[in-house]
């Protein structure tokens, strides 16, 4: 089965891809959804790492999820643990870190683990969209 489904149709509208935003702050999920939805992405939300793992493992998401945007400091399963899980179980799904606390060592470590981008809040909409677009390219390359 072809795992890559970018460019599919959601509710009759063309969709650039499906993005999961993982952040414990509803405001962040809301604003990321707003920005990416306007750019044509279908956006799913999870409030912590545990919920994110449930989401990616449920239904069609294991096939259709294109990009994960993940915070670090979260309850239950935190960002580091969630990212380790995604890298192990869904290595083809690109990851973007969106964190409130810039930490050079952590950024280096995560980028070495294959994270596409390490963004520090507040990040401008254009930068976020560019990062997601790069992640989508990586997603496509993974299927060549």
């Amino acid at each position, binding site marked *: 089965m072809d795992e890559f489904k970018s460019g599919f149709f959601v509710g009759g509208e063309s969709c650039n891809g499906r993005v999961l935003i993982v952040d414990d702050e509803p405001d962040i999920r809301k604003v990321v959804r*707003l920005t990416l939805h306007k750019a044509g992405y279908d956006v799913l939300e999870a409030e912590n790492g545990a919920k994110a793992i449930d989401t990616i493992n449920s239904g069609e998401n294991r096939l259709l999820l294109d990009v994960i945007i993940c915070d670090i*400091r979260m309850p239950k399963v935190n960002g580091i643990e969630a990212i380790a899980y995604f890298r192990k179980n869904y290595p083809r799904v690109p990851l973007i870190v969106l964190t409130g*606390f810039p930490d050079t060592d952590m950024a280096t470590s995560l980028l070495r683990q294959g994270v596409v981008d390490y963004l520090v809040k507040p*990040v401008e909409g254009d930068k976020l969209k560019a990062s997601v677009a790069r992640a989508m390219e990586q997603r496509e390359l993974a299927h060549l």
Partner: protein
Amino acid sequence: MISDLPTSDGTRVPSAAPSDTAGHRSDQDGQERMASVMPTPATRVAIIGAGRGGTALLDLLHQLRTIEVVGITDRDPAAPGLQRARELHVPTYERLADLISNHRVNLVMDLTGDPGMDRILREQTSGETDILSGPASRLLWDLVRHESALQAELLHSEKLAGIGSFAAGIAHDMNNPLQLILGLAENLLDECDIETVHDQARDIVEAVKRTTAICRDLTSYSRRASSQQNSLIAINGKLDEALKIARYAVALQDIDIRKSYQPDIAVKGNPDELLHVFVNLITNAVQAMDHGGTLTLETTEVQGATRVRVSDTGCGISADLIDRIFEPFFTTKPPGKGTGLGLYNIKNVIHHMHGTIEVESHIGRGSTFAITFPREAPTEDRSRPS
């Protein structure tokens, strides 16, 4: 002494509380054991003069395990040091002779400033009792004041060092609303729906208020403690305020917070210093729970004494370390992570408020720090002749 802490299988240690004397600690079952840090008998000291100097000296000596203050006296029955002595359960005397003749006093400290007092004291004491008076006592008073200033400085330095660890929490709490503000403002640039514009503008205003509140809390907390030592402090509100500050230092997402507050209870003391005490205790409690747990904050009033308990379900403190946790510069944290002054300063603040602090800990089950503040009214003075 807090009586409702179980002792069966946990380690339980009071700090050098005002009720301790001569370096001994009294266990709950009445058995006394020597504190390991007190190898020699305490020096028995009598204080003559209960003005400002005598009061400060009493406060200082009372914290030292190597000193036992056997009593204090003053010609003026309203002298502040006599009131302080009653609060600390130190005997007070109306007659000088009653104090220095009955207690095998090693050292008499005269802070009256009376030039004739030295002669009177020499007449009434044996050759085995040392007397410190005149210029020597003035020097002592200067040293006590210096010590007091140093303690205040130490408290402030330790607080500022702790604020360094707030960086991650502040960044998290500031950058999240900033992300919302930026995202919504960008959206408003091309938003045409007037209702959406209003909603999002309102969200921006609220986010700015939240950000402002963070700055206000932190600048207020980081300021030097006020000199108001006798403010009436609402304990429950102060605990809540401390919780708000502590969340910058430690992540509370995986912590179940339980509060059991008795309403409307207050203690007298320095509100800024007490806030610092609570922030430190809460921060320590959360740091002890690496993988989440329950933080319990309790306040009660029993027979006029106010009790505050901060409990965690964390790793606990081992028996070989628990005796040392109130020592200055003692820390189990990695280098750069702790000053080792947190619990030492807590002990000093609590003692200055005439309270006691005790800890009970079970390895793997957690710790409880229990503070008891005495009743406001002075206790009956047993040694004063009726």
